[in-house]
C-alpha cells in the first residue's frame, strides 16, 4: 500500500481547482447555445457563400474559348516541309478544337499547382476551421476581463487555486470549444461537397484535433496574456479585433502564400495560422506529405508550449497586484 504524499494531495487539489474552473467555462458555454451558433455562423457564411461563389476553377473553362476570336494561323510552308512552297494556313477551328480538348487539363493543373486541390471550396473550407479557431481563441481572453469586472476573479484569487489554473482553464476551454466547432464545420463541409484526398481516414481526425488543440492553446495564451491586467473590455475587444483579420490575411487560409509578394510571404512563413492551416489540409484534402506535416506539428507544438509558459509566468506576476 502506498501512502499518498503531501505533494500528491496538493497536486490533486490543484487539478481539481483547474477542472472546476474549466467545467465552469464549459457549463456556461453549453447553457447558451446561441453563443455556439453565433460563433460558427460566420465561418459557415464564408465557406458556403464565399467558397462556393469564388469558383476559381471555372475561370479557365472551355466556354471561355467561345468568347475568344481565334484567328487562322499562317505559317511559311517550308517550316513544315522544305518541299512546300508558299504559305500554309491552319484553320482556326482546328486550333480551337485542340485547345478545347486540353483546356480542362490546363485548368485542373493550374488549380492544383496553385491550391493543391482542384476546387477552391475545399481549400477555403479548411481555412475556415483555422478562422473559427482564431476567433474562438482570441475572444476567450475577453472572459477574464469580465471575471475581473464582475468580481468573480477576486473571489478566485482569495482561494488557494493556483494562479496558473485560472489562465489554463480558459486556454483549455478555448481549445475544447474550437475542437467541437471544427467538427461541425468539417461535417458541414462534407455535406457541401468538400473533396477529401485518398489519404484521408477517420484516424486523421485525431491528428486534426491535436493540431487545433495546440494552435488554440498558443493563440489563447497569447491573448490572455494581454488581458491579464486589462480592466476594460473595450480595450481588449480592440486588441482582439485588431489582430484577428490580419492574422488570417497574412496566412494561407484564403490564398496560397507562394503567390504573395515577398514581404508578405515572410510574414506568412512565421504566422502560426499558416502552419495549422497547412496541417489541416495535409490531413484532409491533400495527399499527405509527412515531412511537411512533421514541420507543421513541430512548429505548432513549440508555439503552444512557448506561449502557454509565457501566459503562466505572467499570471503569477500580474494576477496579484
Amino acid at each position: 500500500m502506498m501512502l499518498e504524499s503531501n505533494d500528491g494531495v496538493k497536486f490533486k487539489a490543484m487539478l481539481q481547482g483547474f477542472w472546476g474552473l474549466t467545467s465552469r467555462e464549459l457549463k456556461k458555454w453549453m447553457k447558451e447555445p446561441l453563443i455556439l451558433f453565433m460563433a460558427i455562423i460566420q465561418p459557415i457564411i464564408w465557406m458556403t457563400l464565399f467558397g462556393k461563389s469564388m469558383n476559381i476553377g471555372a475561370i479557365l473553362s472551355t466556354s471561355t474559348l467561345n468568347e475568344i476570336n481565334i484567328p487562322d494561323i499562317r505559317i511559311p510552308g517550308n517550316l513544315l516541309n522544305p518541299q512546300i512552297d508558299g504559305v500554309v494556313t491552319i484553320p482556326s477551328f482546328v486550333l480551337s478544337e485542340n485547345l478545347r480538348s486540353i483546356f480542362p487539363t490546363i485548368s485542373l493543373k493550374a488549380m492544383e499547382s496553385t491550391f493543391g486541390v482542384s476546387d477552391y471550396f475545399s481549400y477555403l473550407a479548411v481555412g475556415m476551421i483555422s478562422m473559427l479557431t482564431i476567433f474562438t481563441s482570441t475572444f476567450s481572453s475577453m472572459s477574464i476581463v469580465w471575471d475581473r469586472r464582475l468580481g468573480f476573479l477576486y473571489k478566485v484569487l482569495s482561494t488557494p487555486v493556483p494562479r496558473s489554473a485560472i489562465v489554463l482553464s480558459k486556454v483549455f476551454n478555448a481549445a475544447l470549444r474550437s475542437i467541437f466547432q471544427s467538427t461541425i464545420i468539417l461535417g458541414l463541409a462534407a455535406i457541401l461537397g468538400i473533396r477529401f484526398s485518398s489519404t484521408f481516414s477517420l484516424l486523421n481526425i485525431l491528428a486534426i484535433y491535436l493540431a487545433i488543440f495546440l494552435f488554440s492553446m498558443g493563440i489563447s495564451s497569447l491573448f490572455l496574456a494581454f488581458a491579464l491586467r486589462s480592466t476594460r473590455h473595450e480595450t481588449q475587444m480592440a486588441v482582439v479585433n485588431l489582430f484577428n483579420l490580419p492574422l488570417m490575411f497574412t496566412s494561407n487560409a484564403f490564398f496560397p502564400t507562394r503567390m504573395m509578394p515577398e514581404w508578405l510571404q515572410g510574414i506568412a512563413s512565421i504566422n502560426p495560422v499558416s502552419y495549422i492551416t497547412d496541417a489541416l489540409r495535409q490531413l484532409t484534402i491533400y495527399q499527405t506529405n509527412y515531412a511537411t506535416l512533421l514541420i507543421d506539428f513541430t512548429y505548432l507544438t513549440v508555439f503552444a508550449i512557448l506561449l502557454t509558459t509565457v501566459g503562466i509566468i505572467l499570471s503569477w506576476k500580474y494576477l496579484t497586484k
Partner: protein
Amino acid sequence: MNQDVIVVENLTKIFNGSLVAVDHVSFNVKRGEIFGLLGPNGAGKTTTINMLTTVLKPTEGRAFIMGYDVVKHASIVRRSIGVVPQEYTADEDLTGYENIILCGDLYGIPRDTSKKRAMELLELMELTRFKDKKVETYSGGMRRRLELACGLINRPKVLFLDEPTLGLDVQTRSAIWNYIKKLKEEYDMTILMTTHYMEEADNLCDKIAIIDHGKIVITGTPQELKNSIGSDIMEIIILEEDDVTNLINRIEYVKEVKKRSDRSYIVRLENGEIVAPLIIDNLSKKGYHVVKLSISKPTLDEVFLTYTGRAMRDSEEARETIMSQRITLRRARR
C-alpha cells in the same frame, strides 16, 4: 499560546504611487471575536480586506493570519480563510449549487465532501429550494446568502465579510445578521467584517475599529467607544413643581443636571441603568414622585462624529452611486 488570530502591523497600501488607501493600520483580532472595521465609503476597508485575503500586496507593513504572513505564506493563508467579498461574485450563469461546488473545487475539497457540505450550507442559508436555479434569478438577499455559503465551504477558521449587508433592505439585513451569529456559534470562527452601518457594528461586533481616510482613529468594544465620548443621557419627570436640580446633582455618578421645563430634568451620567434606582430612591426619600424616567445611550453615530468630525450619513449618497453602477454593469453584460 498566541490568542491573536489576526495580527496587522502598519499595513499600508498606496495605489498608483500616490493614493494612500490604507495608512499604517494596526490591530489584533482574538480567537472567536467578531471584529468590525467601521468607516464610510472609500475609507479603505475593502483594500484592507483585500490585503488580508492575499488578493492585494501591501505597499508597506505586515499582516499575519493564524501566524502566517499574508505575503510570504499566501497559499497557507488562503487555505484557512473564507472570504465573502463586497460584490456579488457568484457566476450568474450557473446555479447556486454549481457555484458552491465550484468554490469547493477551488479549495481542492474532494467532490463527495463538497457535495455534502453544499447541501448543509444551502439548508443553513435557506436556499435549498433555489439551488438549481440560475443565480441571475436570485434576489439581493439570496445572492448574499449564497456568497456566505461559498465562503464557508472550506470550513474556514477565519472569515472575512466585506459589507455583508450592503444594499439590502432592513429586513434582509437583520436576517443576514442572524445567519452571521448562527455561523459563528456553529463553526467557532473568528470573523473580521467591514460595514458602514452603525447599528450593524454595534449589534454584531465584539470589537470595532473606526477607520477613516485609511487610518484607524479608535479601537475598542462598542461600549468602550461609546463610553469614551461621555455618558448616558437621562430624562426625569417628577410630579411636583419644586426645583430638584441640586438634589439630583448631589447624587454620586451624576455629572450634570439641567432643568428643561417645569417638571422635567436632563441628567448626564455614567451607567444610567445602575444609577437610576438610586436617583428614584433619593427623590422619594424627600417626598418627590418620579412619573417618568428614560435613559438614552450615546450611539456610534456620535462616536464617529466625535472622532472624525463628520457624520457617517454624508457617505450614503456614494453608496447609492456604487449600487447603481453595479446594476448597470450587470446589464451591460447581457
